[in-house]
């Protein structure tokens, strides 16, 4: 899958020569976090979003518990608006590595036709992602959920703990987070409370891509540039997708596109790109002058919007 075998062998050689580069240091820290959480929580689960960060987190989990299997299931919150390529990849990949997968959908809201057009992006996310996630965690009785969020993604995430404490309603109070010192994480909970664990806290977008490359980790093909049909809608390049209603003024065009970040079809913009391999993506990334979440409608609704969503229980 778009790999560069020879180069990766070269890199592997370099890795063994060097004492400890930043990727190894990050990996070691993430394995430590994953193991701590599994040792201390009764029912952990891993949030699996199918994206590149989830792919890295999944590989780290395989590493942390090797030679054993991952001691927790994966949970995918399916909004029903995910790209078909994502769902296909999810089913095939999780099966190939022998992971247990739970898929949860807010069927009631989906049946009522919840959509970003009807509800607005904030409320749509609230129903299909946040509510659905909280329900799934409750139903499964999970006291800890691993998430692939990184602190470099967005300002409100810069202050996130590795162990992010949520009250019995699943909500995040930025003023009531536990101080986190050294690598001594406080896992103590009362009934109903839970903790989101972020093993990738200290990874940057570039780290993720470099790791995908050196580890040869498969990712959804939508990340690679291809000629795809799209329209420009509200300044966002929206790829044609199942269920999409074109406005009379919209004329689909073929362009070389890829996704930098994967979300729901109506709300995740593509970027113009010719990067067809991981090295090309990395090369492109170095030249990027825009942050990765820029293509997400949800973050820009209002200044500080991510913080508001997180308070309600969003990842």
């Amino acid at each position, binding site marked *: 899958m778009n790999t560069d075998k020879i180069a990766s062998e070269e*890199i592997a050689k*370099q*890795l063994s020569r060097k004492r*400890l*580069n*930043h*990727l*190894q*240091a*990050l*990996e*070691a*820290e993430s394995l*430590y976090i994953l*193991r*701590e959480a*599994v*040792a201390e929580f009764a029912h952990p689960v891993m949030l699996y979003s199918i994206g590149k960060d989830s792919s890295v987190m999944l590989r780290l989990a*395989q*590493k*942390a*518990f*090797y*030679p*054993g299997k991952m001691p927790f299931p994966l949970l995918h919150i399916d909004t029903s608006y995910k790209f078909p390529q994502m769902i296909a990849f999810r089913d095939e990949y999780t099966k190939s590595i022998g992971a247990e997968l739970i898929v949860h959908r807010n069927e009631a809201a989906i049946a009522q036709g919840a959509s970003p057009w009807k509800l607005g992006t904030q409320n749509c996310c609230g129903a299909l992602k946040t509510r659905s996630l909280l329900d799934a965690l409750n139903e499964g009785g999970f006291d800890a959920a691993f998430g692939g969020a990184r*602190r*470099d993604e967005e*300002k*409100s995430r*810069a*202050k996130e703990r590795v162990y992010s404490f949520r009250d019995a309603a699943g909500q995040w109070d*930025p*003023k009531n*987070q*536990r*101080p*986190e*010192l*050294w*690598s*001594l994480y*406080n896992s*103590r*909970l009362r009934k109903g409370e839970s903790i989101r664990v972020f093993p990738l*806290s*200290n990874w*940057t977008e*570039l780290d993720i891509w*470099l790791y995908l490359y*050196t580890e040869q980790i498969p990712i959804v093909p939508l990340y690679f540039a291809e000629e795809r049909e799209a329209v420009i809608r509200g300044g966002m390049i929206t790829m044609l997708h199942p269920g999409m209603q074109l406005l009379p003024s919209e004329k689909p065009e073929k362009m070389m596109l890829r996704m930098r970040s994967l979300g729901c079809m109506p709300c995740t913009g593509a970027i113009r790109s010719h990067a067809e391999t991981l*090295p090309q993506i*990395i090369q492109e990334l*170095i030249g990027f*002058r*825009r*942050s990765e979440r*820029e293509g997400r409608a949800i973050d820009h609704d209002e*200044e*500080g919007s991510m*913080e508001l969503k997180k308070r309600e229980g969003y990842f």
Partner: protein
Amino acid sequence: MISQPQGWEIEQKHSLEQRFRQFLDGHLEQEMLRFTTAGSVDDGKSTLIGRLLHDTRNIYEDQLASIRASRVNRSGRDVDLSLLTDGLRAEREQGITIDVAYRYFSTARRKFIIADTPGHEQYTRNMATGASTADVAIVLIDARAFKRVGELLPQSRRHTYIASLLRIPHVVAAINKMDLVDYSPEIFDQVSAEFSELADRLELKSIEVIPVSALCGDNVVERSQRMDWYGGPTLLEYLETAPLALREASGEPLRFPVQLVARPNAEFRGFAGRVERGEVRTGMRVRALPSGRVTTVKRILTYDGELPAAGFPLSVTLELEDEIDLSRGEMLVSETQLAPHIRSSFRAMVVWMHAEPLSEGRTYLAKHTTRTVRASVRRIRYRVDIHSIEHQQSSQLQMNDIAEVEFTTGLPLFFDAYADNREMGALILMDPVTNATVGAAMIVSDLDEGGRHTALEEARCGEQEAALVWLRGREQVAAALLERIRQAGRAAVILDDPLIPDSSLPAVMRALQLAKVTGISSRSDLSRATLAALQELAGPRFFTTAEAAATLAEAAPSQEAK
């Protein structure tokens, strides 16, 4: 239009590819450095970080555009770089940073993690948090305020003190706002002299002083043209070359706290953990704590293959030659290298982080490496006055207080002094009822109680309240003893459940010791191996008569039972 010769295009493409290869190679060789910034609200800390990110080209265009468009601008220039790091709404409204924020940037040489910690007086706990993982501390000193007052501000002294308390290996004083004192070398010299004197007093081992202007960009990333009298490194040059803490932790002695026992199948048992210090090698003789059993490292396993050796801070899984009792919260150390202290009492520097005060006699939960124990405050030796760094008497600690405290723990800890090894000397304190993290502690040393215990004896001390009584074939005596011990307010059980095989008794006994429960058996026969193991485990508390056992049990009723 000028047409390019074809050869030029190919050459250019080739050189682009080469440059990318170099970039990739460079990035894969990058090391990682963590640093923290300490400064008060007015010292220009957010601006300094914004400047570092901006001048190393780590800011995206949309992020710059968003702060350009912001309603807030306190800088008096086009762009207020401090807004890049002031994240949460409440903070922006108040114009202060209220919690530790983590920032990331990289240069060709290193990847950096910044713990941006608020330096306001009431936020000692935040600075301690950011400092706990840092290789380098940047202490911001306002040159203009220094000129006005004629000496270092108390806040700068406090920040430097906390950096020394948390044992950040390298401390750099960034003398900021040099633009507001006309880039005066005299002011810089005066600040340097005072800072060096303070650093000497606090016994800081590695310091640097750099004159900068975060607002104008002098000596942060770009060398200042306006301070040609300064010949030292820029701030970035310093950060790119400061030695990493991981080098220091790679030397002896080995410390391997067990995180998890991996048992994927009946044939394999592995111990997953992180090498906290030193290096573990295959074939190495290792001692398990607290059991004291010695065995050999058979294999070091990782997903990417077996390793001949693994050093700090790698996460690996160890397979041992012999089947020994070892579980989470216990530790492997080298048989021949220096052993850790194994004690259930110690003194530690505490940073109190909670509104409810710490007081003498209270019991908290303490997490140390992978071990969580009950820790009681025996005594507050002194409180540190953070303004004068002098010692004071106190029987309580308020939020943001720093003090030296004596603790006793329910089970022994295996530790090194924090000064020798940060990971092995650090603890967090948690409230047993609310579960809040209420304090951080750094072990100074054990409490010397006449030195009568060897390390292993002490390990058993904490656990030996639990006795083992073997009353061969005397079932009724066993039942009567059980009753007698329970009436004395202590916990005891009879181990003669046929579901517990002879060979499992030592493991059961070990669990009972952890829970401080006395075990009684009237089994008619015990294998020689089991008997030997039980005798070793129970030590002086192995009894074969009900009288001896009962006397001891009644003599010292445990506190928990009262």
